[in-house]
């Protein structure tokens, strides 16, 4: 120990140790008493000051705690291992990992052999993915105490995550040679972990060999079978793979991955287009055999429908559907829905169900029925319901509505019908009517959480925010303690609430919700911190590595992608609206609602050790309407963070790239803009919105380019545009003239180039047969140039709210 510390009598040594004990058992009062006793005699004792700081922070006085520790550090001239360790602990509890790592590194400088500090440090380095530091730390620990087998495994995992897979294998072998292998499950985990690394390296032969070696020692037969099957497929040992997959199907006949593997092993690719007739027939035969083995399997009955064509398809479909109808299974349409990509199949589906309908109405039974017994009335009901779904999918909105109304007349107590009606209204843009139907459905069964959630979603889409909130919290009344959407990380609610605010131009409130989603994602990663230590101790290695990889890609989950896109749109809108957004952010009604909501929320209570209750103060400053977020200095920079996330984690999402183009154009960053354009073209070449943004880019770039940009942009741009914007525009309309969306984009470009106004207007008025989204775009553009397309739009979508204003 350092000589800065004052000499200590045994009594005080014991007192100091008692502080540590009391702290760990959370007896803060006693810990404080002991600390104060020592400080009475040795007022400048750095270690005691540090411990006292730690205890004080645990009782809630954060700043005081930090100050005490800093005092202790200064007294020891920054060279007390214990003080630095305490500092590190405090930063770690506050999730400030970077600072914690620095503190720990300092602690190690003065306390070089302290393994506990090193383990803590390693956990944090893994958390922030500092692989270099992690490898060093784990290596040191291993060198210090090679007798503890756990250190070998920790080092192996570090090597694996850092990418040194071969070395990891060597280390694991070291573990196996010296380690305590008495627990069969732990041994099994380690061996299978080793196997997974061999597989990752890309060595299917080695993997298979290793699996054979460990045949008697592993305890996860499913994983072994799956791995074996994958490797056999890779090595094209199809006969063996087929057998393995059959064994897997015996364990679980409904697993689509097994079926895909099985089909591949039978020599057939998964996509239907590349199969010739012989292959299809042999596949159907295979599945008929499987059906004999597993007669109750829903998947085995369903998969042949993907491959069969013509009359064969119709026969199989008939059999498949009748089961659903006679057992009144509501998910019939969901089961069939993926077949709609094939127009010939769609026609056959329609024929089949029309025949059902007429037969049921005329004769009371399905066509070609066996007995003279009449079908239950529910058969007709579900046939009508299916037809409603069917026409909705084909965008025949009126017909779908007719069918659903007929079904409601037949059986008004079927709740699904009101939900379906709500969906139909939503598809024609009548969000208010849709919300009413959803509410009707919810009233039928107030105990059903699914109906409640749907109702909340529809209400938010109709911008009935306060109503939605009340419905949402209906389920909170029965829950104990405090319940609010934020603490429950209810990201679907926050996203939709934010979208509603965005539509109503309440940009600050919208941003608050989207940032909430971002915070939740980060919380989720932080919350897993303890697993770094736990997984290694318990040797749950494969799941641990899986978790680390999941954390690395967590921003690709759809909640975050949706929130990121919305946040970018909000920032761009803030920039466009300038100062007016400050007024539109909160209305008088909003202020009233906030008062009411605060009253209904109980304040959080936290029990301290004496059993009394004290209120926990919120850590962040209250920003009820998101004004801090909205008034930020540089909205473009904030938006760019989200754009970079989208490009990295959602690279296949076209909308994300379109927003990126818009952002970079606003920022005049042409190099990044062209990169996004290139990527978007890979995803969807003829996309209408992309066409507009490409032309706008070309125009602005042409006006503002500089030499540096030219080097990067020109070689990329030349691949699709030779500089004549007008011709590019005209070519596009020739290729895509039938789609209304394309017409709108071309009109917008012509307006940019200040061309023939009349042609522009005639283009956007010609909206027959357009989809709802295309009409919305056209309508918006019309408003921008002062043309009210309400009449034309109402012809297409008479019920849509937006066109009735």
């Amino acid at each position, binding site marked *: 120990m350092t000589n800065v510390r004052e000499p200590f009598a045994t009594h005080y040594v014991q007192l100091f140790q008692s502080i540590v004990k009391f702290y760990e058992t959370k007896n803060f009062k006693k810990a404080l008493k002991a600390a104060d006793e020592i400080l009475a005699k040795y007022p400048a004792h750095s270690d005691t000051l540090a411990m006292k700081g730690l205890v004080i922070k645990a009782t809630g006085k954060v700043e005081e705690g930090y100050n005490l520790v800093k005092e202790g550090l200064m007294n020891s001239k920054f060279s007390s291992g214990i003080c630095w360790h305490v500092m590190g602990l405090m930063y770690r509890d506050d999730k400030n990992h970077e600072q914690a790592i620095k503190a720990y590194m300092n602690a190690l400088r003065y306390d070089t052999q302290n393994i506990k500090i090193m383990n803590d440090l390693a956990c944090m380095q893994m958390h922030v993915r500092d692989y270099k530091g992690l490898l060093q730390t784990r290596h040191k620990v291993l060198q210090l105490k090679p007798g503890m087998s756990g250190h070998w495994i920790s080092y192996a995992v570090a090597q694996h995550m850092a990418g040194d897979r071969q070395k990891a294998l060597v280390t694991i072998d070291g573990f196996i040679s010296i380690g305590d292998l008495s627990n069969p499950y732990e041994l099994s985990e380690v061996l299978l972990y080793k196997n997974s690394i061999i597989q990752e390296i890309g060595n299917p032969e080695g993997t298979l060999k290793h699996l054979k070696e460990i045949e008697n020692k592993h305890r996860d037969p499913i994983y072994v079978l799956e791995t074996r099957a994958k490797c056999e497929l890779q090595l094209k040992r199809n006969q063996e793979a087929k057998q393995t997959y059959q064994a897997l199907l015996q364990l679980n006949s409904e697993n689509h991955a097994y079926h895909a593997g099985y089909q591949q092993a039978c020599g057939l690719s998964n996509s239907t287009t590349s199969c010739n007739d012989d292959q299809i027939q042999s596949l159907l035969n295979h599945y008929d055999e499987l059906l004999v083995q597993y007669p109750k399997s829903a998947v085995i009955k369903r998969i042949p429908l993907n491959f069969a064509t013509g009359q064969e398809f119709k026969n199989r479909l008939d059999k498949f559907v009748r089961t659903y109808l*006679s*057992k*009144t299974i509501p998910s019939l349409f969901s089961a069939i829905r993926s077949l709609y990509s094939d127009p010939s199949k769609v026609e056959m589906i329609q024929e089949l169900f029309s025949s059902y309908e007429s037969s049921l109405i005329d004769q009371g039974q399905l066509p070609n029925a066996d007995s003279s*017994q009449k*079908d*239950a*009335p*529910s*058969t*007709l*009901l579900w046939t009508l319901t299916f037809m409603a779904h069917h026409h909705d999918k084909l965008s025949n909105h009126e017909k779908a509505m007719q069918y659903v109304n007929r079904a409601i007349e*037949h*059986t*008004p*107590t*079927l709740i699904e019908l009101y939900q379906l009606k709500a969906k139909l209204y939503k598809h024609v843009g009548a969000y208010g009517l849709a919300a009413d139907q959803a509410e009707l459905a919810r*009233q*039928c*069964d*107030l*105990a*059903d959480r699914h109906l409640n959630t749907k109702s909340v979603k529809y209400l938010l889409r109709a911008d009935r925010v306060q109503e939605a909130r009340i419905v949402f919290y209906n389920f909170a009344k029965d829950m104990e303690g405090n319940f609010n959407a934020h603490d429950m990380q209810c990201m679907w609610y926050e996203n939709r609430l934010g979208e509603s605010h965005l539509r109503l131009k309440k940009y600050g409130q919208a941003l608050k919700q989207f940032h909430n989603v971002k915070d939740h994602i980060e919380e989720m990663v932080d919350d897993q911190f303890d697993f770094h230590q736990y997984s290694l101790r318990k040797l749950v290695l494969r799941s641990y590595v899986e978790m680390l990889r999941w954390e690395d890609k967590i921003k690709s989950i759809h909640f975050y992608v949706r929130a990121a896109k919305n946040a970018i749109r909000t920032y761009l809108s803030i920039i466009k609206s300038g100062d007016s957004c400050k007024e539109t952010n909160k209305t008088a009604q909003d202020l009233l609602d906030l008062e009411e909501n605060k009253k209904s929320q109980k304040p959080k209570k936290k029990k301290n050790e004496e059993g009394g209750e004290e209120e926990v103060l919120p850590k962040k400053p209250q920003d009820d309407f998101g004004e801090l977020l909205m008034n930020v200095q540089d909205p473009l920079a904030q938006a760019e963070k989200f754009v970079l996330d989208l490009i990295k984690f959602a690279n296949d999402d076209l909308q994300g790239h379109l927003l990126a183009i818009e952002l970079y154009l606003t920022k005049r960053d042409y190099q990044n803009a062209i990169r996004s354009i290139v990527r978007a073209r890979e995803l969807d070449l003829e996309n209408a919105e992309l066409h507009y943004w490409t032309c706008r880019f070309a125009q602005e770039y042409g006006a503002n380019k500089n030499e540096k940009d030219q080097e990067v942009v020109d070689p990329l741009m030349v691949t699709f545009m030779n500089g004549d914007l007008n011709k590019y525009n005209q070519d596009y309309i020739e290729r895509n003239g039938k789609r209304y969306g394309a017409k709108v984009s071309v009109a917008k470009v012509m307006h940019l180039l200040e061309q023939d106004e009349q042609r522009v207007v005639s283009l956007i008025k010609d909206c027959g047969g357009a989809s709802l989204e295309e009409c919305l775009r056209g309508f918006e553009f019309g408003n921008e140039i002062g043309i009210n397309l309400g009449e034309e739009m109402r012809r297409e979508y008479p019920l849509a709210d937006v066109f009735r204003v």
Partner: protein
Amino acid sequence: MTKDKKDSGKINTSNLLSHNDKPEAPCKTGFAFRYQGIIEKNIQQLKILNKHIYAASDKEKFYTEVINKGPNFSYFAVFNDISVGAVCTKQIGGKIHISLIHVLPAYRKLGVGTRLIEKAAEIAESNKIKVLTINVPVSDNDIANFITKMGFEKEEVTTKDQHEDADSYVYTKSLVPSQ
């Protein structure tokens, strides 16, 4: 249709998610039938059912009464997981009075109505009551036929039905102890 063995009259929980009785054996294939107690959480379904019979406005008083009586006195008839009918009863004096019994038009002639009457008889039994009564509007012959088939006898007393302001007959059925 044979009378199935009944449960001992023990009816558990008012939780919507659990069945109140074991599902009855289907009388034909594809015809799954069970009872579901009516509580506050699903009373809306009753209102929807009633829209068919009572063109007049909903009498809120009636529904409050149904909720108060609880799921032991009012049941939905659930056919293939859809509520297609209902029976609501209450105790008046020493008799169980059926204040409402109804089946959707598309689901008639399937034995649902019979089941609902059986349920009413069960309710009477569990309350140690031996008489069922029901009011049938004078003008309605269909219901009258159905009720008579069920073993009710007409008493000539006319009375104002609580739902409609028309006159109606009172029908009673005395329950013989069941085997």
